[in-house]
């Protein structure tokens, strides 16, 4: 009797293990299928993102003959750097690069500083009308820059602080256009391009950090400011790098504000916009669209190359800031 019972138990356990094994195989199979599907999807999206970049790069290495040759796709027949040389001269690249770098650095560092302070204020202090004021931050994002364009232009054209300058000199304000002052002023006061977004991101990041850190610092006798820059800032480096990157890049490629405030002070975006016309207008009366496009692509590569290098260094922080910030509505 006992033997039979034992046998049946044995059979039972055997049965279970086989079933489980099947289930395990099925699970493994579906996992494999999913990771394959995922790979295809991710590869596809990456291709969609990279294809225009690669096309631009390929076109920038082509000669004019390659453009009209139907057999040339993507890979130029013979690689030439003539376009780069032309674009380099046409954009006055070295000088433009220096100017744009100065402008972008100043604007993005100031924006980073002001937005960090403001974001921290919103994240960690309780004060009356806080939520209302935060809605105003969103409102700043919401109003199209076009609406404010003209008053700001006139404001900086005839810049004055409560009519003090006019009283002293009799002139209707100082002309701040064609200098970096409009950018400095808007950045200091967190009113630059998309600064509302930076404030939002920084606020969320600071909110996600543990309060105990600060409490410990307060108990040790730190003031609010000391706590802010000794305790909070060092642990917020990833998001700070992210915001700096955004600020720098969007200033670098911005054509709206730079064309509004600057006319003689040439920056990259303006140089790129008029590049093809600059180079060919002296030689040819009619510029073929293909030629224009080739030059534009070369110029674009020249403009985004520094950004690409910057991104290579900064993307580690960029990805890390995602992992650590707890953005919740």
């Amino acid at each position: 009797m006992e033997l039979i019972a034992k046998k049946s138990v044995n059979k039972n356990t055997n049965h279970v293990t086989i079933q489980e094994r099947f289930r395990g195989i099925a699970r493994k199979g579906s996992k494999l299928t999913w990771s394959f599907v995922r790979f295809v999807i991710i590869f596809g999206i990456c291709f969609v993102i990279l294809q225009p970049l690669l096309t631009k790069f390929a076109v920038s290495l082509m000669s004019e003959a390659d453009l009209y040759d139907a057999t040339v796709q993507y890979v130029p027949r013979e690689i030439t750097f003539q376009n780069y040389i032309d674009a380099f001269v046409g954009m006055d690249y070295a000088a433009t690069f220096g100017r744009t770098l100065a402008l972008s650095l100043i604007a993005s560092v100031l924006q980073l500083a002001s937005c960090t302070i403001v974001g921290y204020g919103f994240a960690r202090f309780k004060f009356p009308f806080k939520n209302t004021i935060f809605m105003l931050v969103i409102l700043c994002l919401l109003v199209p820059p076009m609406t404010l364009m003209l008053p700001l232009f006139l404001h900086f054209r005839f810049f004055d602080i409560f009519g003090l300058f006019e009283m002293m000199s009799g002139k209707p304000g100082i002309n701040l256009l064609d200098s970096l002052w409009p950018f400095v002023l808007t950045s200091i006061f967190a009113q630059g391009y998309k600064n509302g977004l930076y404030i939002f991101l920084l606020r969320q990041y600071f909110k996600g950090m543990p309060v105990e850190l600060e409490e410990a610092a307060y108990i040790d006798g730190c003031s609010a400011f000391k706590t802010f820059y000794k305790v909070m800032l060092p642990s917020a480096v990833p998001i700070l790098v992210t915001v700096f990157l955004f600020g720098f890049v969007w200033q670098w490629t911005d054509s709206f504000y730079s064309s509004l405030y600057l006319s003689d002070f040439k920056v990259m975006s303006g140089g790129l916009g008029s590049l093809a016309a600059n180079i060919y207008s002296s030689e040819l009366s009619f510029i073929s669209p293909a030629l224009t496009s080739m030059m534009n692509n070369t110029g674009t590569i020249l403009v985004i190359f520094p950004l690409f290098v910057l991104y290579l260094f900064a993307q580690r922080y960029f990805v890390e800031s995602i992992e650590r910030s707890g953005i919740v509505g």
Partner: protein
Amino acid sequence: MSKGKMLNKKGQGSKGFSLSLSQQRAGLGYLFISPFLIGFILLFITPLFQSLLYSFSNLNVTSTGYTLDFVGLTNYNQVLRVDPNFIPSLITTILQMVTKVPIIIIFSFFAASLLNQKFKGRGFARSIFFLPVILTSGIILSMETSDLLLSSAQQVAEEELTAGAMGSGLQFLQFRQLLFSINMPPMFINFIVLAVDQIYEIVIASGVQILIFLAGLQSIPLSLYEASTMDGATAWENFWKITFPMVSPLIIVNSVYTVINTFTSPDNEMMSMIQSTIFSQSKFGFGSAMAWIYFLAIAIILAIMSAILLKLVAKYQQ
């Protein structure tokens, strides 16, 4: 700086006369956000009212400044009832936005969930997904939309794709017919076809949204999933019962951001129209009126959209 220190000293020194701790903290809070407040008043509200003023008047720039003549609603009348281009382009912009925003939201949520999973080369995939945020902004984007070679190259690629797929029956038109034949509502089909057609623009426009969704996904505690899996929930149930409700507030954030971003991007038809009216044609009052109507249209759409979304999210979270 100095004001904050003063407050602090007061608080620590004479106890009878000092501010309470919460008042102190409130003062510090105002101090921290003061850059924004000053900027908001001087560089935002003031220009905003000025531009409202300009839209009701004729503005003439003279050598010593500018003069304003009040003309009432003439500019608005001109924009809305005389100008032949304004209303049609406003409607196209809005329609484009209405179709684009859901696609962007769905795509970025999908992409964020993909990038949130563990797989080899995740860091690399993430850096490529965020590349458009960096490399396709401002002037680069407007260069791209006007570029001839690039679009023709894309066309060739598309043609090759469809030509290659001809035999296998996966041609694009047939894909549409397939959707029709399985009795999908036409609205739905148009939506999908539009999404596939514009995949590049969608991917380019959804970098920041993916970032925000991804951060939200990361902030969901793993213990929730562990607990529900222990109780026998499948991955599908986990998604709808944990992931989606936890991230749904971010859908509002992202929709608002997407609407704002598509409306205020410099490659927008309306934006370039307003800019050329003001700066090339020097019609200052007229352009300001345009900008204001455009702004009001955005505000109304955003208000409707956030009201609907807030209700949906509240309903879902109950």
